[in-house]
């Protein structure tokens, strides 16, 4: 772990010293073992705070939207983050020449909750990665557990662990994980099986918990509008009251807005404070788009148009065309 962090620190301090960039966005460590928030480094001296550890999961790319004051910004990108870069490029919300991308191949981040469950009654003090193991420091001393069992769900189904766009790689690429279509869409398929009323019961149980904090939208790289439609007062597209109707309106329209643009980074689901399985909704749409209009992976090529921005005369339809 440490040498990885050092590589990042060197890249950052060099870039800042050479004035290649005036800001570097990476990750640092905070109070608790599971906290590795995004860090903004604007002078070489502070580069030392940058870290790479099992919890550097936050996607830094959305912060690039407000860096007009910086001529050039350097940013460390994992596989998912790099697809976020392509997302912003395709959405014309980022000029490629204003960022320098430091690719950080990633074999998955750890789910603190899963880890806590594994050590009931014990207090975890520190967690470090050692190869494919995690060394967990608890009151009783150090214990070693296999990392892949404690990865975040979104990382377990990640198909692009290596950056798809970057200016330089911080370290060698990792072996891409094989994710079968079945496993990728299994939760969606299961839901598709059950009766429509049961399905509604399921979703309303989930969305009963939604507090409409908009964290899922604000963290989403595909939600990058200057002013979101849901924040507008005239016309008011979305009631501010947290009724089920409005909650479903928000979640469905947001899903529609990112349809064909969502690249499954899964941040919405990861950070949802209410633990709502939001990725299933987005994956459902991806599954349908692939089925109807051909396989498409968003966030790979900023040049092409998303599936809802194009058509073919002979397209099939999901409704009665007779």
């Amino acid at each position, binding site marked *: 772990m440490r040498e990885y962090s050092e590589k990042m620190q060197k890249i950052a301090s060099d870039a800042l010293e050479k004035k290649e960039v005036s800001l570097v966005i990476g990750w640092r460590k905070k109070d608790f073992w599971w906290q590795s928030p995004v860090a903004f480094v604007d002078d070489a001296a502070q580069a030392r705070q940058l870290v790479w550890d099992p919890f550097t999961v936050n996607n830094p790319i959305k912060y690039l939207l407000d860096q007009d004051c910086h001529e050039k910004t350097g940013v460390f990108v994992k596989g998912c983050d790099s697809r976020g870069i392509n997302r912003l490029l395709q959405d014309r919300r980022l000029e490629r020449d204003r960022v320098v991308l430091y690719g950080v191949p990633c074999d998955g981040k750890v789910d603190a909750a899963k880890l806590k469950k594994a050590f009931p009654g014990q207090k975890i003090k520190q967690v470090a990665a050692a190869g494919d193991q995690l060394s967990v420091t608890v009151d009783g001393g150090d214990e070693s557990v296999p990392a892949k069992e404690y990865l975040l769900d979104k990382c377990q189904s990640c198909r692009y662990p290596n950056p798809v766009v970057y200016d330089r790689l911080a370290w060698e690429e990792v072996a891409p994980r094989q994710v079968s279509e079945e496993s990728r869409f299994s939760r969606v398929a299961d839901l598709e099986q059950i009766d*429509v009323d049961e399905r509604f019961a399921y*979703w309303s149980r989930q969305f009963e918990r939604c507090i409409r904090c908009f964290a899922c939208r604000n963290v989403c790289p595909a939600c990058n509008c200057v002013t979101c439609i849901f924040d507008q007062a005239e016309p008011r597209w979305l009631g501010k009251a947290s009724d089920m109707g409005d909650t479903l*309106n928000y979640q469905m329209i947001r899903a529609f807005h990112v349809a064909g643009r969502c690249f499954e980074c899964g941040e919405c689901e990861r950070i949802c404070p209410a633990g709502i399985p939001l990725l299933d909704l987005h994956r459902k749409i991806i599954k349908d788009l692939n089925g109807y209009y051909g396989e498409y992976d968003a966030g790979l090529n900023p040049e092409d148009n998303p599936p809802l921005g194009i058509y073919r005369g002979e397209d099939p339809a999901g409704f009665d065309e007779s």
Partner: protein
Amino acid sequence: MSVVKQEGFEPLIVAFCCNWCSYAGADLAGTSRMSYPSNVRIVRVPCSSRVNPSFIIRAFQRGADGVIVAGCHPGDCHYHSGNFFSRRRFTVLKQMLEFMGIEPERFQVRWISGSEGAKFASVMAGITQDVKSLGPNRKLRDVR
């Protein structure tokens, strides 16, 4: 939440019709005196591609029991390509609504040309009957 069929329940159907085909079809049904249930309320739009999914969800929230979007047949769009985009958009929306647990009959999309007055009447009779047997929309409706 299973919906109990209500006796004497008359559903409210909101129909978004493109001006050039389906709205003309509705007019033709009128001039040909082809009667269909009075449950249907038409919103006139220039093209099916003007119909924002937000309008549809809004209709359900405000108490519509069924919503239908009707446009020109693919290839006949007055604006060349509008309904080609509609086809993709509403395919996604329709599957999503069903995935969220909304009965598929509640949201329908049909292509009805200006010369298909009879089709317009039968399609509207159809969705009215479908939704009638489903009962009122209680899933997306605002509780106010």
